[in-house]
């Protein structure tokens, strides 16, 4: 049912604007989601996502189909997003990728894993959670946000992440681990604040 990307690209290369338009509609939200995860600001993400499509359009003639269209598009979007963050960044402490013993403590106490159950995540609570996750993501350094976003929105494998980010597979694994631990810690912070608020508001 889904029109083939390559067929649309071929038509777009031949100058068919409807085909390019269809490609934009197909990927616009996902490209925006990737950009939003990396640059944080929604207006900047909108601009970055549009710029990615404009760049792709400008280089359509050079696209030979060696990788998929979506891989090519998301690669451009990723690099534009990282560039945008780096232009805006004033200063940021560099985080090491290596995993140390201290990274393994203070994270879990098993609480996350004990409560897997049915799907109670509905409606308002679900929306609240999405906001909390967004807030938590924004506390992460750029390289941790980037790797998490590419893993989860684009669904890249370790190999693909290594290729996209120009790092070794081992670094991918340790960087992802750090990113996840930081997300976990940030969410725990919200949970603790939420618990304190509950206590204070209790009679």
């Amino acid at each position: 049912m889904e029109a083939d990307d390559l067929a649309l690209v071929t038509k777009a290369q031949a100058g068919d604007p409807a085909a390019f338009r269809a490609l934009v509609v197909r990927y616009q939200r996902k490209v925006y989601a990737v950009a939003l995860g990396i640059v944080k600001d929604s207006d900047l993400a909108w601009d970055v996502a549009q710029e990615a499509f404009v760049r792709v359009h400008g280089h359509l003639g050079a696209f030979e189909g060696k990788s998929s269209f979506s891989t090519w598009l998301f690669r451009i979007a990723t690099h534009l997003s990282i560039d945008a963050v780096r232009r805006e960044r004033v200063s940021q402490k560099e985080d090491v990728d290596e995993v140390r013993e201290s990274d393994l403590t203070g994270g879990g106490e098993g609480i996350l894993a004990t409560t897997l159950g049915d799907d109670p995540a509905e409606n308002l609570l679900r929306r609240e959670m999405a906001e909390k996750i967004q807030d938590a993501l924004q506390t992460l350094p750029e390289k941790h946000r980037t790797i998490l976003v590419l893993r989860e929105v684009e669904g890249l494998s370790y190999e693909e992440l290594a290729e996209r980010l120009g790092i070794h597979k081992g670094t991918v694994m340790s960087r992802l681990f750090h990113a996840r631990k930081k997300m976990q810690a940030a969410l725990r912070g919200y949970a603790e604040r939420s618990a304190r608020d509950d206590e204070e508001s209790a009679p």
Partner: protein
Amino acid sequence: MKDCVRYAPMLGAREGELTEEEQHALDLHLQGCAGCRATAAELAALDGLVGESLMARANARDFAPFVDEVMARVGAPGLAPARGRRGFLGWFRTHPRAALASLVPFVAAVALVVYVRLERGGESGPMASLEIATEGEVTMVLQTSDGPVVLLDDGEHS
């Protein structure tokens, strides 16, 4: 703990991402390490949340102008010609047989949208059961108990 440092980064791997040797060594380690088993379960609980949250944000945003802005920037704006809206009175003029029948559901639709917006503004309101938002050449939305009916501007198109 020294072993844990080596194995912890392997914990979020998907099937096939570790070499056979890595997977085997990790499995052996997990059998004897409750700490890493707990970490693995916690990381698994978080897996997918970031993607879910970002896609929810993207889906909640109105993307109607996005593609037009892109097409304008690449110099191909002419695909979706700007058209004057005739409004629903025009629709009534050209659909006289439907006019009377449509009036009641149309009023209901307006009321429903208002209700939904009000309800969503409240802190503890339930999720809207029916929501309608349209952009572009839509003239009218009829809300029936069987679901919405969306009608376009009925001008001639080549």
